[in-house]
């Protein structure tokens, strides 16, 4: 039995309301909130980046796993906002957490699915008996260009998962991945902001890959949507995951707990992974979880988890995701926001 | 050990000396001191300077200075102990004269602070670079934490704290070398820019260019050169923790207490014997804590005593008759020497409208960093 033996999330304290962004650009906030189903999003502090977020989430995962960090044999961080173009985020993380130096480290990038990718590889290592434990993380401090629709959603946060074979919290029952060349969203080298194909990001990209992956995963497992207590899908906005879930046959109730986007925004590589942590915070032993990520470019990773008895013992050992989302919030105005996100040009 | 006298003093005006480089300033102070002492040749030089390298990119300044003051060939060395560098130069010169190794020795100090923009960074190198400055804390920030701890512990008010710069500015009005020789009122202090809460701009000594020099010789030879030598009665020096957080009590400066105790012991004197003191008021709170550590006021009482006029003319002791670092200016390496120059003028009786009457003993106290080092001198009128 291979599965998650420790999990943790991290949510920054700073927020900006959708209304604040809308009033800056003269957008209709009622239409925005109705269209995106989003109220506010997280903003990283000026001293936070993918590395610090990944470490905060991983420390929470380690608290729940209760294992010696020296036994972690691989660390993968998935992000589209690694602070260094050349120098892996994971190198900082291992030294901060007392992992290694006997450890395999790599940074992943696959738009919004780099986190599930890191989880998939970490899981596979343990399954192949390459190591006792492996750590997969999705974390981002993603950016949307000023005035672009992405500005309402691109947010910050992350989730970390330690995979192992003993004291498993949630078993991985099935996985499936689905990938094609679809240029719906991209960012070229040295560019500050991504570009996207507008509505091309919808049907031919998000829905094609996510539904493709999800339906094959269901087929592989021989399960039906009603077999699951919870389902979580990549959340580029509030609407897409709910629509995708319903198309696959899931109900609103099954999706409620993992649907964190209305308060968090799209945390890119951390999106469906943080949704998963919110589910793990309350899931009961024996319940099953259906998860499908999506990354532009494009592809989806799907997982089916089954919660084990041990989960009940560890849920309270670290901060819960929805508690962090509803906890201390420091709201920024638009001027503070652009300074925090370095969207204005500073002098030398 | 021979007794040692100061026979000559010289300094530049303190301020923004845009037309003078570090060598120009030092040469001016040195030549004035030599003229004052009636000597045209010295045997040795010590020059105190905190950071000529970071401020002006010039190291090896002892050689620069001997070259530009017409004393090529003599032995010379730069000494550094952050803002206490000048006093350490005097202590070094004192030891060389007292030991009999040399007779006419100059101790000087210099700092050229206006040649670069990021002076805050340079000053922070006097703190624990790896474990204080690295966090972003500044020098005003360290003293601000002392001030907050003191206010919390002893109930000192913001207004009482403001009385320190108000007093020192009042003293500075009669000092022709002072950078800011004007009076300042309470409102000006309390509405000045916040630098590091609770310290505002007017709690902080300024950025200053300047140089100062004194000439030491054996007491027995002093009258050969001048009629009015001043004796260096005692020197006490001490070090303390480099990081403020390692001070057991954040309202104490152990290095100052130790340096003071050593000086009193060497002089055979007690605090009540001292008529005036030039102390290191790099920030308003510093003068209060230093005055307590030197025994002029009890712990926790210094702030209120100074606010009540106990540290000005007519009070228990006159502190910072020159205007102190706050109003006279604080070219860090020169400060300790300039303090001694003020003491010499007071003990010669040539301090003009700043004159402290009937002064026999005067003290100077110079500090490095947030109490990482301190030097205390006791001077005696002849």
């Amino acid at each position, binding site marked *: 039995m291979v599965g998650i033996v420790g999990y943790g999330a991290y949510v920054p304290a700073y927020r900006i309301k959708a209304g604040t962004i809308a009033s800056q650009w003269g957008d209709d906030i009622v239409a925005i909130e109705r269209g995106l189903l989003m109220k506010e999003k997280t903003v990283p502090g000026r001293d936070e980046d993918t590395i*610090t977020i990944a470490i905060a989430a991983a420390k929470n995962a380690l608290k729940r796993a209760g294992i010696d960090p020296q036994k972690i044999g691989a660390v993968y961080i998935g992000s589209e906002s690694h602070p260094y173009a050349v120098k892996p985020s994971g190198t900082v993380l291992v030294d901060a957490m007392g992992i290694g130096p006997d450890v395999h480290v790599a940074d992943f990038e696959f738009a919004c699915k780099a986190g599930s990718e890191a989880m998939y590889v970490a899981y596979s290592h343990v399954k192949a008996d390459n190591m006792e434990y492996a750590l997969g993380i999705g974390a981002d401090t993603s950016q949307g260009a000023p005035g672009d629709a992405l500005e309402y959603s691109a947010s910050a946060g992350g989730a970390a998962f330690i995979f192992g074979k003993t004291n498993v919290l949630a078993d991985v029952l099935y996985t499936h991945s689905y990938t094609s060349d679809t240029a719906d969203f991209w960012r070229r080298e040295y560019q500050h902001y991504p570009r996207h194909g507008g509505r091309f990001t919808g049907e031919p990209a998000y829905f094609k890959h996510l539904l493709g992956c999800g339906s094959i995963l269901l087929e592989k497992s021989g399960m039906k949507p009603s077999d699951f207590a919870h389902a979580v899908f990549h959340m580029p906005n509030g609407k897409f995951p709910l629509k995708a879930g319903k198309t696959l046959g899931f109900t609103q109730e099954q999706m409620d707990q993992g649907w964190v986007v209305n308060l968090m925004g799209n945390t890119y590589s951390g999106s469906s992974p943080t949704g998963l942590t919110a589910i793990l915070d309350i899931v009961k032993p024996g319940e099953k979880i259906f998860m499908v990520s999506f990354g532009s470019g494009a592809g989806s990773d799907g997982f089916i988890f089954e919660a084990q008895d041990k989960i009940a013992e560890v849920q309270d050992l670290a901060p819960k995701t929805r508690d962090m989302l509803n906890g201390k919030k420091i709201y920024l105005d638009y001027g503070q926001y652009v300074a925090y996100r370095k969207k204005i040009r500073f002098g030398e | 050990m021979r007794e040692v006298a100061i026979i000559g003093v010289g300094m530049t005006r303190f301020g923004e000396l845009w037309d003078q480089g570090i060598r120009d300033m030092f040469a001016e102070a040195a030549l004035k001191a030599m003229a004052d002492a009636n000597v045209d040749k010295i045997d040795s030089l010590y020059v105190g300077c905190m950071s000529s390298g970071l401020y002006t990119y010039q190291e090896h300044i002892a050689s620069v200075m001997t070259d530009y003051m017409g004393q090529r060939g003599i032995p010379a060395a730069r000494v550094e102990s952050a803002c206490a560098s000048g006093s350490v130069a005097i202590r070094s010169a004192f030891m060389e004269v007292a030991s009999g190794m040399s007779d006419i020795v100059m101790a000087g100090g210099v700092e050229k602070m206006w040649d670069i923009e990021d002076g*805050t960074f340079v000053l922070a190198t006097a703190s624990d670079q790896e*474990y204080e400055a690295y*966090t*972003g804390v500044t020098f005003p920030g360290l003293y601000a934490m002392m001030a907050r701890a003191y206010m919390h512990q002893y109930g000192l008010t913001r207004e009482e704290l403001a009385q320190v710069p108000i007093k020192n500015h009042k003293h500075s009005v009669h000092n022709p070398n002072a950078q800011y020789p004007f009076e300042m009122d309470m409102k000006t202090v309390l509405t000045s820019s916040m630098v590091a809460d609770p310290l505002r701009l007017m709690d902080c000594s300024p950025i200053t260019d300047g140089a100062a020099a004194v000439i030491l010789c054996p007491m027995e030879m002093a009258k050969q050169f001048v009629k009015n030598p001043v004796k260096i009665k005692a020197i006490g020096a001490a070090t303390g923790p480099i990081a403020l957080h390692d001070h057991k009590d*954040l309202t104490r400066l152990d290095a100052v207490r130790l340096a003071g105790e050593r000086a009193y012991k060497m002089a055979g004197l007690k605090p009540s014997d001292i008529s005036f003191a030039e102390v290191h008021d790099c920030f308003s709170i510093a003068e209060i804590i230093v005055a307590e550590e030197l025994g002029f006021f009890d712990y926790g009482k210094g702030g209120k005593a100074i606010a009540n006029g106990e540290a000005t003319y007519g009070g228990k002791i006159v502190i910072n008759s020159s205007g102190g670092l706050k109003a006279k200016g604080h070219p860090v390496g020169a400060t300790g020497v300039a303090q001694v120059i003020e003491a010499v003028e007071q003990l010669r009786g040539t301090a003009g409208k700043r004159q402290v009457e009937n002064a026999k003993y005067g003290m100077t106290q110079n500090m490095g960093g947030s109490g990482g080092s301190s030097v205390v001198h006791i001077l005696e009128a002849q």
Partner: protein
Amino acid sequence: MAISPRYSREIPHRYRLEATKFKSGKVYLPTRYICPETGDREFEKITLNGTGTILSYTIIHIASDAYAKQTPFAIAIVETDEGARLTTQVVDCKEDELKIGSRVELIFRKVMEEGDAGIINYGYKAILI
């Protein structure tokens, strides 16, 4: 300014809060080889648990260039529960939330960037708990 060799050698203290505990019980961050209080030379390496109490604090309004874009920011002297003293920024809080005696937890954050092209410096900071 830290440059990479200096930065790298401080990693055990700044990333993992590795401290020195002397036989006398005194704890220091970073490593010391002799206890400045007792002269004790027998010590063990310990890892601080990361919680402590604010002894004093300030809000920096004027900073050196490397930190100028962060102002105003809070700095505190913290005594950890093990007795080690350290200076640290306190983040994610408003000025009026800070008090002498406030409890804090040390977390991992970015301390500064050496320009847009230099290394990024990380280390401990504190948040209120």
